[in-house]
């Protein structure tokens, strides 16, 4: 391959121990998610709770494992663009099909 994998002027690098720490956090978050699923008391808030937890996992993987925190902002812009449009489409479709919104019975 002709391209040089040379200094790509990124702002830094996470260390190996950071990666291990992130992995542990991801494991804990997963366990929390599963625990919430089995605790009947929390079922009224289960949806926002799970959405927040999974968003946290998503962001940790993107920022650290995918290196976005240390890369040029253009890459985050590109990724965010895709996520935003996809999320809007998902929400719009759910509304149109009555899966959420005033017509839905949850």
């Amino acid at each position: 391959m002709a391209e040089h994998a040379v200094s790509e002027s990124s702002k830094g690098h996470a260390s190996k121990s950071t990666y291990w720490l992130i992995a542990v956090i991801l494991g804990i978050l997963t366990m929390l998610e599963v625990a919430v699923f089995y605790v009947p008391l929390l079922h009224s808030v289960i949806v926002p709770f799970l959405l927040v937890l999974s968003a946290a996992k998503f962001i940790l993987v993107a920022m650290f494992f995918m290196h976005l925190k240390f890369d040029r902002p253009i890459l985050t812009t590109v990724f965010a663009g895709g996520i935003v449009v996809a999320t809007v489409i998902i929400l719009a479709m759910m509304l149109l099909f009555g899966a959420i919104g005033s017509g839905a019975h949850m």
Partner: protein
Amino acid sequence: MSSHATAEAGHESIYAGGLRSWLTTVDHKRIGILYGVTALLYFVVGGVEALIIRLQLASADGMVVGADTFNQLFTMHGTTMIFLVLMPLSAALFNYMIPLMIGARDVAFPRLNAFSFWTFLFGSLLLNLSFFAGHPPDAGWFGYANLTSKQYSPGMGIDFWLLSLQIMGIASIASAVNFTVTILNMRAPGMSLMRTPLFVWMALITQVLMLLAFPAITVAFIFLLFDRFFGTHFYIPTAGGTPILWQHLFWIFGHPEVYILILPSFGVVSEVLPTFSRKPLFGAPFMIFSGILIGFLGFGVWSHHMFATGLGAVADTAFSLGSMLIAIPTGVKVFNWIATLWGGRIRFKTPLYFAVGMVALFIIGGLSGIMHASPPVDIQQTDSYFVVAHLHYVFFGGTIFGLFAGIYYWWPKITGRMIGEGLGKLHFWLMFIGMNLTFFPMHFLGMDGMPRRIYTYAADLGWERWNEVATVGAFVIAVSVLVFFVNAIRSAASGARAVGDPWDAATLEWTMSSPPPEYNFAVVPAVNSARPFWLHKHGPTRDISTHTKEEGTPAQPETPPVRVDLPSPSGWPVLAALGLALMGGGALVGLWLVLIGVAVLVFGVYRWAFQPLERLGHPSFGPASTGGR
């Protein structure tokens, strides 16, 4: 040093070479020509399909073709024109011109570029193979469920349609990745985004739309494929599914698609009008932002194609509002184009005619479009010839006229020859008159209640006269296309040799010979203006967007002062594309062929991945080079 000093010595050898050199080319200029020639041939195919349709509808109780054939004709006409003509013609201009306009020597991924072309070509052949198999698709270019279900369309026509479009979709997504990275990452030093030419900007927005819209139709096709081949019920009401799902997924793609089809033409017009008015584009930053806004809003209006499906008042209102909002940035563009012409020193050349024609006809198409944005009005107009009028004014009057403006504008650069002004203007007037004769009466027919997609109609409905006029118009268009081909052939055979800068234009593609040398730029240009070549030639006069101290970008030297190595030709992209095509076609034949296709694809991809992009000295240019191919 005048701009005419750059080589008139004819670099036409950049197109020399036999079949093998064309099959293995990774040069964006050759790939652009491949797209362009293919698209123009399909233009004739789609046009013939249209002529037969018009002959059938010219009189009541038409007997030219039967109902089934008629359904196949309008399906193939629409599918061909959108996917085999408009998109590849835009791709041709993107491929040839974008690297030249940003100061690059090729696109970011030359072999991926070749792969996109061959994949598109094989997909298009698969679609047309349906004719030879006796099973052309017949459910419209938009293939609504559940007409397309196995139950109501048991034959292979829909399978040909969905497989070929799926394959061509992959070509489009690959292209979109390639050109997004090219435009973002390969601009000449000093070419900030705000100094990037409008054509390149519109192309960038188009690529982003392709990236985000094509996956939706990919998914729609997957569901249809599973319904037809594996017995799922995605679109089947009896199992709780709904055909409306298809409409949503299709139009989530389909609406951005129409912006994919028009933005390139907008870009061309934004290049042509300033050149032939000899003044800068009025409000260039506004043109950029309105393009971005159109792209963004384009994702929020898709259900305006579904006002008649009973979405409910809230949905109807939301999509109606969005559709009306989009008229604002579009209007900004129209006013800025007019303001560009205003007060200019106009040169009446063919590209200008097509560009002005585009603006005028697009306005008409836009006005009927705005009417459709109102649900109560649209309920009346939908599925009538009023919509046929609207879509042809924007696709033909808008896209085709814009693309011809680009073809005539960049013809000298691409071919190294001038193309006839007399025949060019004749082409324009015949096409303009023919187009209006054909499609304007369709507004009346729609208002008179003539539905779309009917193969004939009774004599007492009063529709015959306007249908006759439309058919005459269609043949006038056909003559105009013939004039174009005559003009093109004459130019190729004996046209006057073109200099590097025949139009005294402003942007980088005019700084080298016509056609360009294989390496495009002998020296990578440094840019300090949105009109870099103009600034060099004429100084900062009448130019509101430059710094008076800068000198602009000069014409290119004859040969590279330092050795230039280019990407080497490769046969792996065409092989990989073939594998993909065998997979698609194999679905119609048997699992064994699909598996062969997979093997060919995987083999081709691996060989491609492990082949170095630049094999030393082959080809290379400039001092100490070992010569070209």
